[in-house]
Every structure is written in C-alpha cells, then in structure tokens.
C-alpha cells in the first residue's frame, strides 16, 4: 500500500496542464533530466491490451473482468476436486521449472481466494471469504479436502521459495521469485497444515463406499503425497541431521498412482483465470497462462524427488576430491536438477563457513592441500593457539597460513558452489573466476616463498644443478586454474559454443591445456616422491608419526596417479579428435557455420575464444600464428595426421578404461564401502558414454582412412589434374541428440556419400 500522509490534498490541474501541453511542439518533451528515453521504452502503456494488465476490453464489464463468475463455494464432484488438484500440480511444477506465479499457480481462483487479502490466521484462509459463511460444515470435499490440499501446496511453495531466494540463482533465467505482493503463507507454522491434511485424509477414509472407490483412492493418494512432499521440503537443510529419505521415497512411490488415476479427474478450467493478473502487483504486461501437461509435471516431480533422495549421498564427507566428484556428478545429471535442488546443494556445500554442516572451511582447505600437494607437515600442523612465542617460526607459519585460509577458503568453496548454477552460468562464472585464480596463484607464490624460509624446506636439486622448491600453495592454485581452463573448453563443447570450423583448433587447445596440466602434476609428484624418500629414512629411524605420514604420502601419490590417468584420457581423446577434424577440414568436408562472405575469420574467432584467457599470466597465451599452425597441423601429411588420430584414439580408449577401473572415488586403503552408490552409477555412465564416443571416433577415423586410400588409388593416374574430392559426408551431432554420445566430445558422423552426388 502506498504511504500517504493525511495532509495531502489533490488539486485539479487538468486545464492548466492541457493548455500548457498544447503549447509544446510536436516531438518536444518536458521531462525529468535524469529520465532517459531508454527507460521510457520500458513503460507500460495504459489502455493498451497488450501492455496494460488492468485493461478491460470493450464489452467486458467490471464484474466479469475482475471477479470472474466462478463461484468458489459451489459444490464440486469428487472427480472435479481431483481435476483441480492435478491442475494445480501442473502449475506448481511449471513454477518450479521457471515460470512466474502470475502465469501458473496464481491463476487459480481457489488459491487467490485463500491468499488475498492476506489472511491474518490460517482459519481465515477459506473459500467463503467475502460471503456469508452459512453451510460451512457441508461440502467437506471442497472446504476440507480441497482447501487442505491448496493450503499445503502453497506452504510447499513457501519452502521452495525461501530456499531458492537465499541462494545464488538467476531471476527469470532459473526461477521467478516475484510474489506480486502476496505471501505464500510464510507467516504460519507448518504444523496446522499437517493437521488439516490429516483431517482431510481421515475424512476421505470415512467415505469408503460413499464415493467411487477409484476416485476416492486417487484423492487420498494426492493428500498423502502432499503431506509427504511438504515434510520433505520442510526438512530442507535439516537433512544433514535427519538423513531421512523417507518422505521423498514415499512421494516417489505415489507418483505411479498419480499418473494412473489422473484420467479419473474432470478438469475445471473455469477455476483458473489469467485475469487475476489484473489484481496482482506487477510491472510487466499481461501474459498468457502457462500450460504444461500432467506427464511433464510428473516427470519433473519425479526427478526432483529422486535428486532430493540422491543428494544425501553428498553429505558424507570423504575429503574434497570425493566431495567434488559427487557434486559435479549429481549436478551434471540430464536434465539438470531443478533450481530448488541446486539451491539446496549450495546451502549444504557451505553455510556459515562450514562445509556440509560439519567441516570448518579451514579443515576443508587443509584436507585439500594434504590430499594434493602435501606441503611440509609443519605448514598444516602449526597452530597459533599452541605456540605463543612470536619469534618461533611455527608462530610465524601459523600466521601466514591463517592469512592463506582467509584469502583462499571462499574462492575454493566457490569452485564447488559454482557447479550449482545453470550450465551456461557455470561457464560464464568460471570465465570470471579463472582471472581471480591467476591472482590467487601469484599471492600464493609470495606466501610460499616466505613459508619456505620459515619451514627451512630443503631444495630439490635438478639434473642441471639448479635448486628448486616445491611451492606447494601456488602449485595447488595452478592446478585449480588448469582445471578451470579445461572446464571452460569442455563446457564450450557442451553448450554448442563453437562452430564446426573451430573444432580442430579447440580440441587442439584442450590437448594443449591437458599436456600443460600433466607437466604440472609431474612437478608436484616429484616433490611428493622426494618427501616420501626422506620419510622412509625417518621410518627406518622409527620416528614418531613417520608411519602415519607414509600412509598420507602414499594416498597423495595415488591421487596424483588417478588425476594423471584422467587427464591423459582427456588429452589423448582431444588429440585424436583434433587430428580427425584437421583431415575433414583439409578435404573440405567439414561443415561450416559461416558463409564464404562472412565477416568472421579464423583470427577473429581465435580472439573471441581466447578472451577469457587474455589476462592469465600462466599458462601463457598461445599467439595466433602458433595456434593456427598447431590447429591445422601445418606441415604434416595426411598419413601422419591419420596415424596420429589412430594412435591417440587407442590410447584414449585404454586411458578411459583405466579411469573407469579406478572408480569414481578415492578410497582409503582399507577399502571401505562406497557411500554414494547412486551417484557412482551416474559417474560410471558418464565415463561409459565417453568410451562410446571413443568408439564412435575410431569408426569415423577408419572411415576417413578408407576414403582417403580409395581416393589415392583413383587419383594415381590423373597426373597434374585436380585431385578428386573425398567421397564422404560429415554431420556434427547436436548436443542431446542420440548420435552425440557425450556432451563434451563432439564426434563427427562420417559416412560415405551417395555415389550419385559425386561432382
């Protein structure tokens, strides 16, 4: 409501205004100096039916336009109640999918009656509002059953709304949080909603024999589902403590019944009206009602429940590496988990500087360092609380490490949280954070140098006699930056960012980043091995902690080995696809997105693709000329390129098999049972899809090989003439199509062209 002080009085200025305006020249404006025409374009035009949600068309009288003729207190048959319930469920899911409430749930006249004017108590939220409450006790199917269902549904939305709104999401892209000045009953505690539902359920129980049994059961199932769904959503982040899957499992078990019985219902289309938009506080033009069908709604609901169950598998903390695998795998599910699930995962990942509600971020960061770079023990063990002598190096180290934690814990946690965004935004976000990580790496380098003197780290002597140090913190930061490089490229493939003519270059660049990364991991390993050797001596001397340390070092080495295998797999596959695409491009059979007259050129495309990396100091930017030479494999004959493709693809297949054999998770040597079976299944499927893509690539390479051979045989006699074109047809499968085995691996489909099309 607009705040108006009592003393304001209106004065009629119609005549003055009209006269003054008439003196203006055509096109002349009198305006607020800060008000721009650009803004003016966004103004809603009153009395324009397309823009003005409050506009009443000719012939629409006031009452019809705003009130709708629908009588909310009217008697409804059980079939109609069923139909309304399912209609509401469709709207609810459409809202979950990202449509605004004004076009979905808020079109329901029943909900409108309950929610507006804002009820002061839950008892006040009933369908009789504004009418004489005469026959309140009768028509229980409407005033008890339907009302309980509606209220509980709104409360469900309230929980979803609250969760999403507190997390990072993109308005209108992922979700619309706009409530149009209404409330989703957030002011009421959840208990009375359960009471209402339970009362409704027992009423339906009592109706055995009085209603059509199938319809009665269908209504009963919906009430039960609603109760469990509400409980599941109320649980929200409490799931860390409760670990209860019960409610969502019950929901899932009811979905088949919902699907089967929906046909028993009778739709009541009159009880939904887009005209309610005329009463909502809304700054947008009127928009049509969104209609999704019941199967789609159920499919969405089913995934939501399943994701809600499976997300419990991320809760058991088993080190940062495993944590990342579970999160990435869960959130890479196709279709992507809904915005509610993604918001919930964000909260679970880090809330109040605590990971999964149990691990302090400092511990989390230290675990990560211990897993990967294992800097000299003293760095992670020094604790300011224990050493109070400022001159003690351990005190100094603790101070430096605290500074490190302060600076790095947030960006590190964000590398996990960013996975919860929608896929396009993940890539965009990583394009920004990669620059931050470049700076972080430099800061870490400074810290490393200071810490090195404090901890008296022994240098490692290189073959050429130079001394070198481990630089654990910056090594670790560099590792993360390289992961982000790879992610930007691979998500680029997934999101169909690159045109076909760019694929040779982009796959080359991916392999280039992989080999840089492999080199970096080798460096880390060298130092870990050296530490392990020193530790063996200490073990022989039976020093305290040496055995424990040995175990930790072995674990770290195993992780480095696992990472190496994975990156080799990516590298080899990228090399192979690069070579394959070079051949297709050379023989002019690679489709192109741009026409010959297009403004775009290889150089301009290079510039735009390298934009995220321009500011990065390490790895250095590949200059265009070098990039082009590498991308087209300049100077290599077709035979060499083919050989390269064939060799790399067989190496890739081996490396992916090894990756699969290693399993999704790092396990402690005692081989404890896997706590994330569902997510591991997804992970395996992903690797297997990649392996299928490898096989697809092998076949494509073979096909090209044969075609080139055939052409060579034909070409022989034609001396000096123009070589015949390669008789192949190439299509690039779209993301999501069946022939695209894996989003990150664009394997071209190569097939012999029809003989007739020879030119």
């Amino acid at each position, binding site marked *: *409501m607009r*705040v108006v*002080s009592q*003393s*304001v*009085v*209106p*004065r*009629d*200025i*119609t005549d*003055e*205004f*009209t*006269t*003054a*305006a*008439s*003196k*203006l*020249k*055509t*096109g*002349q*404006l*009198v*305006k*607020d100096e800060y*008000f721009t025409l650009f803004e*003016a374009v*966004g*103004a*809603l*035009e*009153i*009395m*324009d039916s397309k823009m003005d*949600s*409050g*506009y*009443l068309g000719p012939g629409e009288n*006031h*009452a019809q336009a*705003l*009130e709708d003729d629908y009588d909310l207190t009217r008697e409804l048959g059980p079939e109609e109640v069923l139909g309304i319930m399912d209609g509401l469920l469709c709207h609810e899911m459409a809202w979950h999918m990202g449509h605004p409430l004004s076009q979905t749930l808020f079109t329901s006249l029943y909900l409108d009656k309950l929610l507006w*004017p*804002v*009820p*002061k108590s839950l008892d*006040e939220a009933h369908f009789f*509002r*504004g*009418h*004489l409450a005469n026959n309140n006790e009768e028509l229980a199917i409407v005033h008890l059953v339907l009302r309980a269902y509606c209220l509980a549904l709104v409360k469900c939305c309230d929980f979803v709304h609250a969760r999403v709104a507190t997390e990072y999401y993109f308005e209108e892209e992922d979700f619309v949080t706009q409530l149009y*000045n209404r409330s989703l009953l957030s002011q009421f505690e959840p208990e009375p909603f359960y009471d209402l539902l339970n009362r409704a359920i027992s009423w339906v129980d009592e109706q055995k024999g009085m209603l059509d049994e199938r319809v009665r059961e269908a209504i009963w199932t919906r009430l039960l589902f609603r109760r469990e769904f509400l409980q599941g959503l109320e649980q929200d982040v409490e799931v860390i403590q409760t670990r209860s899957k019960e409610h969502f499992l019950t929901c899932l078990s009811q979905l088949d019944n919902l699907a089967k019985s929906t046909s028993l219902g009778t739709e009541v289309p009159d009880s939904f009206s887009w005209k309610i938009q005329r*009463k*909502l*506080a*809304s*700054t947008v033009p009127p928009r049509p009602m969104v209609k999704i069908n019941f199967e789609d709604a159920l499919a969405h609901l089913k995934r939501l429940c399943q994701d809600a169950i499976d997300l419990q598998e991320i809760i058991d903390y088993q080190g940062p590496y495993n944590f990342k695998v579970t999160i990435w795998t869960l959130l890479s599910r196709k279709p992507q988990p809904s915005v509610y699930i993604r918001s919930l995962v964000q909260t679970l990942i880090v809330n109040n500087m605590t990971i999964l509600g149990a691990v302090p971020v400092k511990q989390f960061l230290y675990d990560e360092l211990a897993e990967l770079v294992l800097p000299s023990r003293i760095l992670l063990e020094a604790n300011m609380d224990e050493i109070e002598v400022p001159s003690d190096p351990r005190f100094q180290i603790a101070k430096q490490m605290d500074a490190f934690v302060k600076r790095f814990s947030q960006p590190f946690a964000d590398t996990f949280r960013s996975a919860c965004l929608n896929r396009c935004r993940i890539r965009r976000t990583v394009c920004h954070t990669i620059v931050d990580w470049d700076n972080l790496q430099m800061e870490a380098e400074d810290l490393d140098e200071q810490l090195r003197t404090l901890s008296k780290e022994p240098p490692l002597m290189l073959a050429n006699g130079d001394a070198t140090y481990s630089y654990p913190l910056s090594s670790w930061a560099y590792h993360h930056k390289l992961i982000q490089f790879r992610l930007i490229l691979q998500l680029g493939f997934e999101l169909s960012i690159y045109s076909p003519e760019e694929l040779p270059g982009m796959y080359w660049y991916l392999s280039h980043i992989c080999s840089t990364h492999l080199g970096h991991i080798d460096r880390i390993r060298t130092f870990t091995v050296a530490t392990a050797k020193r530790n063996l001596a200490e073990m022989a001397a039976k020093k305290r902690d040496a055995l424990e340390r040995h175990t930790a070092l072995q674990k770290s080495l195993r992780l480095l080995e696992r990472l190496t295998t994975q990156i080799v797999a990516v590298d080899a596959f990228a090399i192979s696809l690069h070579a394959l695409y070079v051949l297709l491009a050379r023989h002019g059979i690679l489709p192109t997105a741009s026409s010959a007259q297009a403004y775009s050129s290889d150089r301009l495309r290079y510039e735009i693709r390298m934009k995220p990396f321009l500011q990065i100091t390490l790895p250095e930017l590949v200059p265009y000329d070098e990039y082009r030479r590498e991308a087209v494999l300049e100077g290599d004959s077709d035979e060499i390129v083919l050989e390269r493709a064939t060799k790399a693809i067989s190496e890739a297949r081996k490396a992916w098999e090894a990756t699969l054999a290693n399993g999704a998770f790092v396990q402690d040597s005692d081989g404890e049972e896997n706590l994330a079976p569902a997510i591991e299944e997804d992970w395996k499927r992903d690797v297997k899809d990649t392996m299928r893509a490898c096989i697809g690539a092998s076949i494509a390479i073979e096909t090209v090989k044969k075609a080139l051979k055939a052409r060579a045989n034909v070409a022989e006699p034609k001396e000096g003439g123009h070589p015949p074109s390669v008789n192949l047809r190439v299509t690039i499968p779209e993301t999501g199509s069946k022939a695209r085995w894996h989003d990150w691996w664009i394997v071209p489909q190569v097939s012999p062209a029809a003989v007739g099309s020879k030119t």
Partner: protein
Amino acid sequence: MDENKAVQYLDSLIGRTLRVHATDTRIFVGTFKCTDAARNIILASTYEYRFPSPSTVRDAATGTNDSAAGSAVDAPNVKVNMTSRFIGLVVVPGQHITKIELEETPPSRVRDPLKK
C-alpha cells in the same frame, strides 16, 4: 501562456505526484516524469486504483462480515476502499486522460516526508 511559460509550468510539476484519471475510471498515482504535446504522461512508481466492483459494494452493503476486504459497515452509508496495486512505470496516453490532479501538501505543514 506562451511556450516558455508552458514549459516552465510543466517543468515545475516534474517529480511531483500526479493523479491521472483514465477514461475507464481507473486512477493512476505516480511520480510525474515526462510529457509531450499530445499530453501523454509518464509516471514512475505508479499505483493503479480501481473503484470497487459492484459485488464488493453489495457485500459491504448487505453486511457480510469480512474485515479483510477493507470495508467498513456504517449503515446507511457504506464505505468501501478502492482496490490498488503497484504497477511501476507507465505511460498514460493523452487521449485516455479525463482528469489530472496534483497532490499537494497544504502550506500550513510544508514538509514533504515522502520525498527523499
């Protein structure tokens, strides 16, 4: 009124709160931002006011007990509030305007607490 004066007058209204009545009886109350020769008016932070529907009036008159509807039963006269909602930035085309009012604070209390 010559052109200069006209511009001056309209300029003096910029930033003030206007009540613009439309041909369909709705009233738009918002901050005056812009106008032109055709008397099109752009208002910012606008609220739409609509006369209560006949049924609301009838309910109020028959004494339906519904405090939330914002009506007060005071027989024989019935007082029913206009319904309002926020709609933001709007342009009211000149041909649909029936009346323009300026919200003023009487000089006795020259303070405008609404203005930032």
